[in-house]
């Protein structure tokens, strides 16, 4: 934890407060071994923060796949084209 704090411009107490908030929100986990407290990122929960756009992209990609499949496999729709 002190290693992380050293790289930040915040003071150690302020840094600890921020980490506590992140821990309460489930974004990190901390565990104390002797005098050393280690932080671990909770990747799954972090991903929720920016994954909404990826989720929308998947929806639209798959929708485009289905449109593509629909127009290229429906003979009726291309026949109409020539009529």
């Amino acid at each position, binding site marked *: 934890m002190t290693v992380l704090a050293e790289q930040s411009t915040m003071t150690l107490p302020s840094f600890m407060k921020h980490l506590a908030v992140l821990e309460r929100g489930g974004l990190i986990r901390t565990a104390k071994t002797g005098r050393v407290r*280690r932080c671990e990122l909770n990747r799954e929960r972090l991903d929720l923060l920016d994954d909404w756009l990826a989720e929308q992209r998947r929806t639209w990609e798959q929708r485009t796949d289905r449109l593509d499949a629909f127009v290229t496999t429906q003979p009726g729709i291309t026949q109409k084209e020539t009529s």
Partner: protein
Amino acid sequence: MNPDLDLTIERVIRAPRASVWRAWTEPASFEKWWLPAPTVCRVERFEARAGGPLVTSMSEDGVSFQPHMDACFLLVEDGERIVFTNAIDSAWRPTSPSPVPMTAEITFADHPEGTDYRVIVRHGDAAARSVHEKLGFAAGWGSVTAQLAALAEGRNVGA
């Protein structure tokens, strides 16, 4: 185009532009590809013109349907472009749709191999914010967290 909020899809569809346009604008075709099987999509109201409704419902068993989308066309340029939004419903009432409010712009252009099909989906800041709220964070924590992640992943997190 804001890469944090918007997404684009570009695809060459190997079918004539008029066919792709019809698949999009004829309700009987539209409902066949709009939702992934086995979910059944049913078009309730569909008028491809500026201000026209785009309302669909969906069903898992093909018998009982529930509302899916209540949106509104903003712009329809015959054979070329469709813009619609779910941030305004078919009665032009502002809404907060699930999962996120968006405006989708779909363009159709001729391509030597068929149709150059492009989609731009624009999301508001509110979309990202609602996700933050679900997680119980005030605005601003996302960037703090991202910085922490970068910091932590730059070296082993430890004592």
